[in-house]
């Protein structure tokens, strides 16, 4: 005798259940009580057990299908037996979860004269091909054709629903720069013991110094007109000043290694440059001995190559210290992640007018906040503070270091 497998009513007001997955395939031998399929209701996912021993045949609903309660979705037969006609009254015992008030299975008109095995969905060849290509389960699609057949447009509509735009459209695959950035920052943050020291300093002298240089480099000068004009930025000045100060603070121009702390006798200054895909740190080698003009032209070169995505390996290797300046974005203060094996990175905020007390009186001064991130294996807070102290002094009197 054939046993029907019907969609059970698991809740009082349930009208249909969603078939999540079959645990058995068409033609599989099943034992009574074995898990047969998974069904999702509004509240839970439940397993349905086989109502009898036999072969599972005549599966009429595929995974993903929404099936009305009480509808036969498969049969369990003894080998050699064929499942009964769809319109024949069900003599089978209902599975354990069957609800006495369950509605009788609605019988689709086109099935009335044919056997239930296998289920035949009316679908156009194009729709069937599209369903395969777009991975749409045709059992879950309602046909809109002249006689209820599934058409290509039904598959396309279903595919559009199955793949909400948000899922696909908001997934961004990082490029090579983005991927490297993700790896390095993770490595840095998870392996380097960071600590941060901040100091707000007076930037008036720095501004004055830059304005003086800019005036001196006016194109009226015949010699300057011949050479390529490069504008000196605050970053350039800071690169030069920090490089000079670092020579007196070797622990901040150093690297942690398994053997010990490696002290560098030269300053290769990394400058963080924001590009489309993330951030890169391009290197100005020997910044401690470079002139401002050399620093500036090297920076311009690096920036151009970074934006063009044409940085060379030498442009980004062997930095001993890094400066990250977000002043142009009007950031007041931030802390940066160290790029190992460097021991520190200086985060530079915007120069902005602040009210400060001078000799007991309020005054408005251009100020900037510097935040040093340090690898605590290499430098401690006191060393960091002393470095910032000297740096503040150098910024207060740029001419002293830069001439």
């Amino acid at each position, binding site marked *: 005798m054939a046993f029907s497998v019907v969609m059970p009513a698991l809740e009082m007001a349930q009208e249909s259940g969603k078939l999540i997955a079959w645990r058995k395939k068409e033609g599989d031998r099943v034992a009574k009580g074995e898990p047969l399929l998974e069904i999702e209701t509004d509240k839970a996912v439940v397993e349905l057990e086989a109502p009898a021993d036999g072969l599972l045949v005549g599966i009429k609903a595929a995974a993903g299908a929404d099936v009305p309660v009480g509808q036969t979705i498969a049969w369990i037969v003894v080998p050699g037996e064929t499942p009964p006609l769809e319109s024949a009254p069900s003599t089978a015992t209902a599975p354990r979860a069957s609800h006495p008030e369950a509605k009788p299975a609605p019988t689709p008109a086109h099935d009335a004269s044919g056997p239930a095995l296998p289920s035949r969905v009316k679908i156009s060849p194009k729709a069937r091909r599209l369903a395969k290509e777009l991975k749409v389960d045709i059992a879950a699609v309602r046909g809109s054709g002249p006689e209820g057949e599934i058409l*290509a447009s039904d598959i396309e509509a279903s595919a559009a629903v199955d793949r909400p735009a948000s899922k696909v459209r908001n997934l961004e695959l990082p490029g090579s720069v983005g991927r490297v950035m993700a790896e390095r920052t993770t490595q840095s943050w998870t392996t380097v013991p960071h600590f941060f020291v901040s100091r707000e300093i007076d930037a008036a002298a720095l501004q004055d110094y830059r304005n003086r240089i800019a005036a001196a480099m006016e194109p009226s000068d015949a010699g300057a007109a011949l050479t390529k004009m490069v504008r000196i930025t605050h970053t350039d000045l800071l690169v030069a000043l920090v490089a000079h100060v670092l020579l007196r603070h070797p622990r901040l121009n150093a690297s942690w290694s398994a053997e010990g702390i490696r002290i560098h006798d030269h300053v290769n200054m990394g400058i963080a440059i924001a590009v489309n895909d993330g951030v890169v740190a391009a290197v100005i080698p020997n910044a401690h001995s470079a002139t401002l003009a050399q620093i500036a032209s090297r920076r311009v070169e690096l920036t151009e190559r970074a934006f063009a995505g044409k940085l060379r390996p030498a442009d980004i290797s062997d930095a001993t210290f890094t400066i990250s300046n977000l002043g142009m974005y009007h950031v007041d203060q931030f802390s940066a992640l160290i790029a190992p094996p460097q021991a520190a990175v200086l985060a530079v905020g915007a120069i902005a007018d602040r009210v400060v007390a001078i000799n007991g009186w309020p005054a408005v001064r251009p100020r900037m906040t510097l935040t040093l991130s340090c690898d605590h294996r290499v430098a401690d807070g006191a060393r960091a503070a002393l470095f910032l102290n000297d740096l503040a002094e150098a910024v207060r009197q740029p001419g002293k270091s830069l001439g």
Partner: protein
Amino acid sequence: MPERELTFAQAVREALAEEMRHDPRVCIFGEDVAEAGTPFKVLSGLVEEFGPERLIDTPISEAGFTGIAVGAAMTGLRPVVDIMFGDFVTLAMDQMVNQAAKIHYMSGGHWRVPMVLRTTLGATRRSAAQHSQSLHAWFSHIPGLKVVLPSTPYDAKGLLKAAIRDENPVVFFEDKMMYKLKGPVPAEDYAIPLGVAEVKRSGDDITLVATSSMVQVALGAANLLEKQSISAEVIDPRTTWPLDEAAILASAKKTSRVIVLDEGYGRYGVASEIAAVIAEGAFYDLDAPVKRMGAMQVPIPFSPPLEDATVPTEETVCAAARAMCKHQL
């Protein structure tokens, strides 16, 4: 200068006259072709220009004069045979099927039969069952014959000139109901290659493949459909052999729905063949079964209302197309 317009009959006559002027081997055999210019007046005036030596009035003897044309073609002329009603081709079948179509092959290429058999098709002229049939499928079935079905005056001139210049026997069907149809026809010499379909109207939702006067029906139906927001493409194969399968398949793949319109009998007909080509070549792009529309499977009635009911019309094609595109409305 406004575009010159000719009737379909004038376009056929101009093609013949130009080819006769250009090539002295071209001559015409048939019943009432000379003095009478045929009952449809297609050949009026030709005998005055070319004389009774080149337009030969024959007795009522289709098998005889078609056979003469086969022999004349084999021995150097380029005859154009006129079979007044397409229904009478039954009498000339042996000459066309067993002789004209086979001679080049059976002589190992020594003999050629560069002849044209011009005849008519089409119902609704109140000509009754023996004068209203469209029997072009018979010839389309035979290897060795080319079959041409012009649908406009322009195509009639260009295709007939190509048929006369062809080295093979060509059967040329003119719908007698289109003889008065007017359309632009350039005065200059042009030939339309045999085997090249034309998209007569571009559309997106459904393709109407149509032959001969059914192209005009399809274009009318497409206009009706447009008012109901269904965009129909009309494609005219122009020759049933050679058949431009690529063009038909491209259109079928584009729209996913096809109705094939041909005025021959549907059973084992031209529409069936084209439908089969589409089923084989565009199956996975079809969103509905290919539908054939043609002459009803009955002797064509003399009674006008009954006769009209046997052939597709703009309205019946429009209704069929609507049913196929129903879900879009």
